[in-house]
């Protein structure tokens, strides 16, 4: 019975492409993409409070892998390769930084996208001698929509399972107090590494799945740092510690940014930055937590009256 609601919701969302035109479908793909990224981000950063600014590094790796390998092998195999590459990069980054204080992790991820972008550019300019690639895959927007929906559903299911499983509890203990965690016998680095890699693989796949939409791919397009920025702000708005928090943050913010970039293309990043600061100040734990607080206060008032 408990499974019925999410399944009905999923079926309803899956039917959307049959009823809407090209533009709403594009919006749907955008929302699903960011909802997936934000949920994956919160999977690791929510409980541990390690702020990852590397979302677009993995996202771009996914998209680029598809651009490079699409002509060489069947599509499912391409996705698998993308996931593997994302996993390897995540494990390397995690091994180097997750043993140390959180600040090193933040700094390292802060420049990671720029590093990957420069390396890919270097490789393309010096080895393949072409900057930019074309992706011609027989994959329509509705297929991208369904794939993203599937990925989002799987990510949410994983997040739900993790919050109930032992590893989720371990992660929350680490986030609250790493000293206590180590005294309880929790393998701190191992737990963090596992979760960080999982979240990175989801981000890589989100990039890989959306690659056919662009047709033309270039490092400066797929490694755009604004993607990392949007992901963090969406997860923070909704509340990174709630299952549906990041999803709830992604929907309104994506629509808002879509509107902003159409109407205020020049002032886009100023408005974005101010909004970000406002969210950090006013909603430190997200909208859902604030709503709960408000509801609790309202109830207390009613009880006392």
């Amino acid at each position: 019975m408990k499974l019925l609601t999410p399944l009905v919701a999923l079926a309803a969302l899956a039917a959307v492409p049959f009823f809407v035109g090209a533009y709403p479908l594009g919006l749907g793909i955008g929302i699903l993409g960011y909802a997936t990224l934000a949920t994956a981000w919160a999977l690791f950063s929510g409980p541990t409070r390690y702020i990852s600014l590397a979302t677009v590094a993995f996202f771009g790796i996914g998209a680029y892998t598809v651009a490079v390998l699409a002509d060489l092998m069947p599509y499912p195999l391409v996705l698998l390769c993308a996931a593997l590459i994302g996993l390897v990069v995540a494990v390397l980054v995690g091994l180097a930084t997750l043993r140390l204080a959180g600040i090193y992790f933040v700094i390292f991820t802060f420049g990671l996208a720029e590093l990957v972008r420069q390396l890919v550019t270097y490789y393309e300019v010096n080895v393949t001698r072409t900057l930019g690639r074309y992706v011609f895959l027989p994959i329509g927007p509705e297929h991208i929509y369904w794939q993203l929906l599937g990925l989002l559903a799987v990510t949410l299911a994983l997040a739900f399972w993790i919050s109930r499983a032992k590893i989720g509890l371990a992660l929350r203990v680490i986030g609250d107090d790493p000293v206590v965690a180590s005294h309880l016998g929790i393998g701190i680095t191992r737990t963090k590494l596992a979760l960080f890699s999982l979240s990175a693989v989801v981000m890589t796949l989100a990039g890989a799945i959306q690659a056919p939409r662009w047709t033309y791919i270039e490092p400066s397009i797929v490694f755009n740092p604004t993607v990392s920025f949007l992901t963090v702000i969406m997860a923070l708005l909704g509340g990174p510690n709630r299952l549906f928090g990041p999803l709830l943050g992604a929907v309104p913010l994506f629509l808002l940014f879509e509107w902003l970039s159409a109407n205020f293309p020049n002032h886009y990043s100023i408005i974005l930055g101010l909004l970000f600061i406002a969210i950090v100040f006013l909603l430190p734990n997200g909208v859902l937590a604030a709503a709960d607080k408000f509801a609790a206060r309202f109830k207390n008032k009613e009880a006392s009256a």
Partner: protein
Amino acid sequence: MLFSAILTGLVLGGTYALIAMGLTLQYGVARIMNLAYGDLIIAGSFGAMLLFTAAGINPLIALFIVVPLGFALSWLVYALMLQPLARRSPNRDRLEGDSILATFGLLFVIQGVALVLFGANYQSYSFLAVPIDVLGTTIAANRLLAFALAVLFGVGLWLLLTRTRFGTVIRAVAANPGSAPLVGINVDHVARLAFALGGGLAAAGGVVVSMYLTFSATMGVIFTMKALIVVIMGGVGNLLGALAAGLILGVVETLVSSFIDPGLTLAATYLIFLAVLVVRPQGLFGKAAR
């Protein structure tokens, strides 16, 4: 060729050391990891360029206008944005997280303003671009001047911190913000001043950068990254460490770009960073215990 590359590298490293000193003040004393730091540097560069091209003001004079502006702007940012966060935070970890997020937002605001005003193109102006002979190799006069300025600011800051009462107070807060109030130090006040001082140094670094490098509105992230790497390599709060680490980074970058490939400089920077993180996370010259 090798000597010339090392010389160029030392000059570049002087600038890195200069900008890293500002960041180490902000992070070591005010405990704010400022991700918008590089964008303040770029703002300083644009300021110097505007004064030079529009009003014909020599960048050396521009320092006296741009640096106080950087100081004032950082003072305001700390007072309006970061101090409330510091008051709200129950512990240092929470403040670190919140300040990273808030300054991440600030990064986009400053960058957005620069994009609106100056566009996304690379900018530069020609100032003192005359070759000077140094021990058999030639180097542009503006680079030498940039190096001299970096040394001047570095020595000045070092004297301020070690020879004056104000400097002692700053070091006391850096060493132990919990105990500093016990000897009558107003930590809030000192942190704000140190943060502003770091902002002034960033603006100075921006003016110096603009004299000999091309820059663009979106380059701030790279400067932040390099300053952070120098700070961590040198050990947080360690001025001489920042100087040594800055010079090392400058020389390595120049060697990589002149002998291997200019496209790999950032990769080289990252490799050094990784090596330091894995071998000596407390910094090359930092103390062992955390």
